[in-house]
């Protein structure tokens, strides 16, 4: 072995440095020298023996990756890159998550303050929080689509049943990871979403003593508090990622072992030729797949960064408050279906049904043993899966307050015009446009375009929750005619719409704006409903829906994004 000094003596300094660099590159890549790398990037044929296979044999990072794929599976169809994207999202979440961990303490005393510190004091803090949150939701979508794709192309069939089973577990872990992170900001959104989730878990079909103890462990006490937050934090940053990592490697090992399944039409029925790849149909990892993956990494990063900056903001509501229940507590959208189901039947049945469904999904490939993966032979299976998707979408809608949890119509109007949490069109109106006084829904305010728009929205919402009995005094807005339902005790109930939503008959409503401090407005929504049988008698008035708006609160910025207002 010659030393570098010897080499310099022998070759001169320039050649010796070149030779040394070559050697370093070869060590780092575990087998490819500079000219091999350049040849690979140019797309040249490899020399013999093929140096591009050595990293797969010798390096840690590539030893689990196949050195070549069937060219058919490297196109967008049939995989749509969903599996790879899921992995990318996991790495993305890990990196952004670790950065956020630096600024977070899992204690109810300061967790919420930490969130504001990230937003107000950490350079790019909001961006990283958005990237983490957006990434989590994208990951749920990608993993779900990955599963859908696997079902549609029949790739769960023999011999890949176990891969499917681990995939189902990974889907559940992804949902749990996303949801366990939900609690950490310790705001109202987090606190109540988890409280609802846990109260459902308490109804599991098991003896009460089991349920109560599970609840006690999950909450860390009789109610969700400091211990609960710490537990969910540890679940989120430790246990769930660890389990996900383990199942990911099992899953991926099986993927490599069986090979990626070819498009269904490419194989004879009942055959699995994924591992028998003819020489002329091979696409090598280096350079083809690697280039592709680097491109997707760049594209996805661009999408996630730009999306977090311009399209989407992670919400942050007010501090968690165990004694103030928001009017509508909703699960995150990816669990909304379960909330929808809970409205349909007894809690215990639903909570028992979900794990049963999961088990059914896991074992499905062992029972569904039809040999053909071709679409034409699987009309029933594919139809059932499409029906299931439609059912899930409807269930998700049923999870929203629209379905069966409307409260009184005035509160429904209030929560849309002046929500308890977060921005609305009215909250986003520039401060100077909101002069003290009262405003009618639908009123046009000269020189105040944003306010006029917000009052228009107020009118629309009010119309949606009102009905008319023909009172001519309603100058500004035109709700639909009332339908009258009479209940057993002879009381009239006024409803509108196809789903007989409760409505206010010929209401009067106004927005009252009062300045109570320098730069602080008090906004009150006032309602007055007259007795329909005797218009001089006021049945109901309400002025207890109050919001405050400070000149610096900057709700407008939250409203700019596509997902809000």
């Amino acid at each position, binding site marked *: 072995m010659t030393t570098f000094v010897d080499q310099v003596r022998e070759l001169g300094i320039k050649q010796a440095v070149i030779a040394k660099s070559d050697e370093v590159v070869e060590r780092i890549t575990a087998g490819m020298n500079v000219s091999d790398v350049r040849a690979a990037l140019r797309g040249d044929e490899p020399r013999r023996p093929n140096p591009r296979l050595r990293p797969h044999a010798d390096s840690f990072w590539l030893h689990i990756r196949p050195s070549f794929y069937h060219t058919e599976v490297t196109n967008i169809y049939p995989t749509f890159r969903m599996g790879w994207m899921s992995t990318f999202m996991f790495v993305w979440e890990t990196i952004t998550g670790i950065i956020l961990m630096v600024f977070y303490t899992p204690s109810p005393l300061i967790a919420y303050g930490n969130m504001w510190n990230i937003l107000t004091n950490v350079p790019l803090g909001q961006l990283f929080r958005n990237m983490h949150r957006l990434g989590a939701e994208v990951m749920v979508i990608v993993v779900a689509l990955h599963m859908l794709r696997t079902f549609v192309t029949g790739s769960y069939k023999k011999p890949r049943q176990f891969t499917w089973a681990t995939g189902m577990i990974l889907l559940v872990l992804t949902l749990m990871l996303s949801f366990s992170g939900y609690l950490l900001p310790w705001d109202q959104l987090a606190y109540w979403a988890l409280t609802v989730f846990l109260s459902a878990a308490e109804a599991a079909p098991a003896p009460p003593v089991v349920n109560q103890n599970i609840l006690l462990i999950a909450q860390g006490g009789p109610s969700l508090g400091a211990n609960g937050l710490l537990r969910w934090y540890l679940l989120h940053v430790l246990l769930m990622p660890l389990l996900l990592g383990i199942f990911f490697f099992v899953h991926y090992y099986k993927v490599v072992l069986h090979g990626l399944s070819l498009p269904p039409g490419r194989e004879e029925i009942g055959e699995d030729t994924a591992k028998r790849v003819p020489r002329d149909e091979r696409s090598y990892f280096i350079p083809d797949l690697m280039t592709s993956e680097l491109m997707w990494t760049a*594209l996805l990063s661009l999408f996630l960064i730009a999306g977090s900056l311009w399209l989407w903001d992670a919400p942050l509501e007010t501090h968690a408050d165990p004694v103030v229940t928001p009017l509508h507590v909703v699960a995150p959208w990816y669990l909304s279906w379960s909330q929808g189901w809970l409205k349909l039947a007894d809690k215990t049945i639903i909570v028992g049904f979900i794990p049963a469904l999961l088990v059914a999904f896991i074992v499905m490939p062992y029972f569904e043993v039809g040999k053909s993966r071709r679409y034409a032979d699987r009309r029933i299976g594919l139809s059932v899966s499409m029906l299931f998707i439609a059912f899930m979408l409807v269930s998700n809608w049923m999870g929203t307050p629209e379905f069966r949890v409307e409260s009184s119509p005035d509160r429904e109007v209030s929560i849309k015009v002046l929500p308890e949490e977060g921005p609305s069109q009215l909250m986003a109106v520039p401060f100077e446009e909101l002069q003290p006084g009262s405003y009618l829904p639908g009123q046009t305010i000269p020189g105040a375009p944003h306010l006029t728009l917000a009052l228009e929205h107020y009118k629309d919402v009010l119309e949606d929750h009102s009905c008319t009995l023909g009172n001519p005094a309603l100058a500004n807005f035109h709700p639909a005619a009332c339908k009258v339902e009479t209940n057993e005790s002879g009381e009239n109930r006024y409803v509108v719409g196809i789903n007989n939503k409760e409505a206010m008959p010929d209401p009067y409503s106004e927005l009252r704006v009062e300045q109570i401090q320098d730069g602080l407005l008090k906004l009150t929504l006032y309602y007055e409903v007259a007795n329909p049988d005797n218009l001089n008698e006021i049945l109901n008035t309400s002025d207890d829906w*109050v919001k405050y708006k400070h000149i610096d609160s900057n709700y407008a910025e939250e409203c700019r994004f596509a997902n809000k207002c």
Partner: protein
Amino acid sequence: MQVKIIIGTISFMLAMMVLGYAAIRETARLERFTAARSGRQIEAGAHLYNQNCATCHGVYAKAEECYDASTGEPIGCIGLPLNYAPLLCGDVSLRMEAMNWEGTKESFINATLTSGRYGTQMPTWSQQFGGPLRDDQIADLTQFILNYGTEELCSAPIITYDWPDTYAAFSEQFPDGDAAAGQELFVTYGCSGCHGNLEDEASATVGPWVGNFPEVSGTRVEGLTAEEYVYNSVLHPSDYIVEECPTGPCAGPPSAMPDNFPLRMAENPQDLQDIITYVLGE
């Protein structure tokens, strides 16, 4: 493959440019969010003030316009004014000076909210000491109260009045009291919040009933006439503390009665003469 390399390279460069763009605008964003944070604290504080404080300190924190929390009836304000220059103006406000507070104004208000003021009607608010509010809520309330300290409030000079030591000297300057005005002032200054009304002994819930003052106030302290006694008790409540209060032995010294009436009445010393006239039924 070349296409992929080009797309990937461009995307990567764009991603870095987007990050750079975000970084350039970050200082301004941090400032906006810092302001928004404090704005939202004030909003939350306004809610809390309305729910917890307005009953005693008044709707506009001026110790005026207090309403019973359950019935909505107007009542006398027990609390001190908070929207009040002697509390909020100056680096060390008059109130902080009187309480010997060495810290900041923010910490003064925060501490008062957190642990209440012993011996007065101000309860402890923090959950640390058995109160109903979390510390973040106390911080919100503090921001809300500090927000009253505007330039407008603080640019007006604080009016003081050099109260004569004796009632005789005082009544030379302000000889005549108006009992009808005194009746109103008895509510405005919050006297009725603790001492009730003059008609019903049971209406006094915190401080001693003053309805019997025409008879008893001249006998309380040897050497003091009824007028002298009332005059002195309003201005220096801790000098003579009655033994029996409606809820048991009276607290103090110092007395539970606020000692800031010399300042609050400074703008209009006649008010005290009116109240004395009203209470003593002259």
